């Protein structure tokens, strides 16, 4: 029973993490010959993946769980908006954006306590 409980996360990792991700690499290996990077299906796949990843990141900030929930919603929102503005201003630098976002989060969190 306890062995099952311990192995369960690894089973999920393979079934719902590894396989659904790896399948696309294998598909690319076998059927992808001669497909250009600008073909319509590739554009659609890129759009879906972009929306999904942006959505997951936004959801993690809005509905924070675990350690991030320690910081109030307003500060989390302020940090991500501020970080994003910095990212846009400074030549779209992810490094600068993350740095500013983190600084705002820590400062805001520290002042509110």
């Amino acid at each position: 029973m306890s062995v099952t409980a311990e192995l369960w996360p690894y089973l999920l990792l393979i079934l719902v993490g590894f396989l659904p991700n790896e399948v696309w690499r294998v598909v690319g290996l076998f059927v992808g010959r001669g497909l250009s990077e600008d073909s319509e299906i590739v554009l659609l796949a890129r759009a879906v993946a972009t929306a999904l990843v942006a959505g997951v990141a936004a959801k993690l900030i809005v509905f924070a769980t675990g350690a991030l929930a320690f910081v109030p919603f307003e500060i989390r929102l302020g940090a991500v908006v501020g970080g994003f503005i910095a990212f846009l201003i400074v030549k779209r630098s992810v490094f600068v954006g993350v740095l500013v976002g983190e600084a705002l989060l820590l400062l805001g969190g520290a002042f509110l306590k």
Partner: protein
Amino acid sequence: MNGLREFPSSSRAYFIGIFSAWTSIFCPVIGGTYVGLGALAHDFGLSIAWMTISTMVVWAGPAQLVLMSAFATGAATAPIEVALGVTLTGMRLFPMVVALLPLLRPGATSGRDFILPTHFTSISMWVESLRLLPSIEPRWRVPFCNGLSCGFMSIAMTCGVIGYYLAAGMPPLFAAGLSCLTPLSFMMSTAKNCRQLLDYCAFIFGVVLGPLLAWYQVGLDLMWTGVIGGVAAYGIHRLREAAQ
């Protein structure tokens, strides 16, 4: 002599590949991403072994992010939704593999040569391979590419462990800062990868729809965020093309 880079042996090509990864611009990017993911894994009650194995077998930041955030909300109760979310993020790997293989094909001796590079395909390895491989003699490309990938993966695994233990021993505010690293960096690197109207629309739709669908507790909210946001962005792209 055709000016292409030569190596004395396959193992030398492999090790130079590792070195190229460690000196790549993607090194701090991967490091930061995986410190964040490691902290998130700790946050969601996953083990360090699980985190490390997931980096090895999944080897895709967005897929790992979707997978882990699903564990926080109960992956065991909705495995189909998690698998759908992961597979939607994985779709982008398909065109990458398609674009990478023509570079490896001339120097490959058998079909088995493609197995590792196919599994290793991820955004960082792909960008660096497309940049570096064309200047390397074809027969050294597969070992070089594998070395490059192993170099990146070693950084990811190490930083995952570092993030995990940092999150475990930090005061709450700093732990919150670590957990915020992942959403911040993913949001901005996704925005940075936007190349045309299609990508910008998809990004904005995703940012709005993700929290909105979760707020209304729509079932399969992750999957719908990707499908609705992505298809709508693609629709706008097609309309604009038709108008031109």
